[in-house]
């Protein structure tokens, strides 16, 4: 009897584990004020970047923040709970305005934020693209939840990024296209919409997951089955690879309402619409290897033709996929990333070795890879203290993470 009661209690516990988190989406720029401003030219954007002291608002952001443009948004990264801001901006007369939101990466706290840079505290110089401007001051407010922006936030330029950072080719790789569904970013993992916002979190590259439909079309999806973690309720259930591409595309909707993307759509979007420079194409099943190789080869060639700094690597996470890749004719010419041993990296002449972060910084092995002209990434590092340690003491060329905002902070703040 006791065992039966325990069994039922355990099952009830399992059923109650599906906690729906209702995260607030702050209303940004409700009066469409930014439409009256002029977008900043690219020369002005670089002037703003750097490390800033937090004069007011330390409760939210800590003592220092990193200010960095990422394609179309200004991002601010802090070391406090992985806090970050994503801001859209423009100038009116000689005052620069920013409106957006803040968010803690490690929990669901968020709110609106708005700033301006006064004309006599950097506004004029920034608009003119004056790179000697060092008196930049952001003056603004932030709110909590759907509340008004009624708390003061003031940032003052401290220094430019260090030469080491400027010369670094360190890659910040966002997991599942930019973040997981469990990070509540408002868009679904492995979707075009997620890839579109990945750079706002400081990502220079993304990791995406590829599977193959029943009729041979590679598409983005992580799990082996249709489930409510990734999808909305639909008429089809079961193993994802049991369905044709047309069936998946038409009958399945991702968690936040997006259509499931084909691998081609995703890679073409990266190529044509973003500035991302690395794609880690994680093959979830051995069946998708050949189709992925054909597609990444085509897109890599197009990137070269366009003069685009982009490289797509075939991720090899398991032995069966390794064997399939090793058997592929001319595999040595295909950009690849091996998560297995160093010897296997050498065996297929992979470009990148990617061990799990829990194995430590492994500087000696990373140096061996560097000596052989290869790169080394580690995955999937989310712990703030280890992110700091790996950046300051490790020699990896990139970190795959669910929290690119935290990696960005510790990378750009390096002296």
């Amino acid at each position, binding site marked *: *009897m006791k065992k039966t009661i325990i069994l039922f209690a355990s099952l009830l516990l399992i*059923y109650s584990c599906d906690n729906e988190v209702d995260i607030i989406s702050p209303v940004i720029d409700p009066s469409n004020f930014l439409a009256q401003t002029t977008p900043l030219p690219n020369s002005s954007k670089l002037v703003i970047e750097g490390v800033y002291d937090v004069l007011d608002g330390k409760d939210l952001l800590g003592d220092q923040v990193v200010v960095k443009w990422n394609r179309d948004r200004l991002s601010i990264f802090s070391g406090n709970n992985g806090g970050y801001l994503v801001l859209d901006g423009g100038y009116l007369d000689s005052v620069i305005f920013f409106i957006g939101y803040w968010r803690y990466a490690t929990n669901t706290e968020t709110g609106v934020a708005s700033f301006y840079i006064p004309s006599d505290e950097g506004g004029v110089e920034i608009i003119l693209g004056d790179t000697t401007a060092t008196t930049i001051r952001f003056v603004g407010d932030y709110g909590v939840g759907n509340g008004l922006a009624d708390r003061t936030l003031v940032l003052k330029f401290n220094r430019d990024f260090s030469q080491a950072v400027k010369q670094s080719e360190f890659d910040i790789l966002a997991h599942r296209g930019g973040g997981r569904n469990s990070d509540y970013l408002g868009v679904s993992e492995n979707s075009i919409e997620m890839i579109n916002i990945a750079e706002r979190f400081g990502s220079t590259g993304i990791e995406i997951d590829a599977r193959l439909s029943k009729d041979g079309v590679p598409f983005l999806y992580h799990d082996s089955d249709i489930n409510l973690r990734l999808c909305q309720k639909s*008429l089809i*259930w079961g*193993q994802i690879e*049991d*369905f044709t591409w*047309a*069936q998946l595309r*038409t009958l399945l909707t991702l968690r936040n309402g997006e259509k499931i993307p084909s691998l081609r759509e995703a890679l073409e979007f990266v190529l044509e619409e973003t500035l991302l420079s690395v794609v880690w194409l994680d093959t979830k099943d051995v069946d998708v290897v050949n189709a992925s190789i054909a597609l990444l080869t085509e897109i890599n060639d197009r990137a070269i033709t366009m003069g685009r700094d982009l490289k797509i690597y075939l991720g090899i996470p398991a032995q069966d996929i390794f064997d399939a890749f090793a058997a592929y004719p001319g595999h040595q010419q295909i950009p690849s990333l091996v998560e297995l041993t160093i010897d296997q990296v050498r065996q297929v002449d992979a470009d990148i070795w990617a061990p799990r972060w829990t194995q430590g910084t492994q500087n000696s092995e990373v140096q061996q890879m560097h000596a052989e002209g290869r790169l080394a990434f580690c995955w999937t590092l989310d712990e703030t203290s280890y992110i700091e340690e790996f950046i300051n003491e490790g020699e990896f060329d990139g970190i795959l993470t669910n929290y690119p905002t935290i990696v960005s902070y510790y990378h750009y703040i390096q002296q």
Partner: protein
Amino acid sequence: MKIKKILLALILYSFTAFGQVTDKPYTLTTEVGLGYSRYITTLDYDDLNKNGFSGTFRIMWNPEYLLSIGLETGYQYLYSIEMTNVDTEFGTSDFSASMVSVPIFLAIAMRVLPNLKIIAGSGMYLLYNNGSAFGDALESNQVSIGAHGGIAYTYPLNNLISIGGELQYSYYSKIQDQNISLQFVFIYQLLEW
């Protein structure tokens, strides 16, 4: 706290109130239920048919106490839909889809009145998805943990056979939907010892 007290009272009651001491206190019964099933879902399709057939098959061990334990399987219709001439990015297509479930459960029943018992079960549902779209079959299956609870009224026709009715609520964890079924129940005593 109140629920805890009620549960405790029911358990104590089961060991005392109707305890029967006979020469052959143990019986093994087989129970067959057939009836109507109604799927409860947030799936939003106008043409979704949520009414169908359900069947239950149980083998229960009944000791001298009021609690019985056994194994259960069966069939539950969940939904079906047919749509014609649907415009999609791949052209116009007819769709059909349906899903049924087969439980494989550990079931527990407790007699709360001489002819009335409550039944609960938990285990896994095998979910079978079928249909067609774009000229290709939809065919897949999935496992979901699940549970059901219900109440049954049975009337003994003789020492071996009882008949009655059972109302049952089922929950499917994987798809987070529910089902209610109303079944005619036939119970036959296979063994006693």
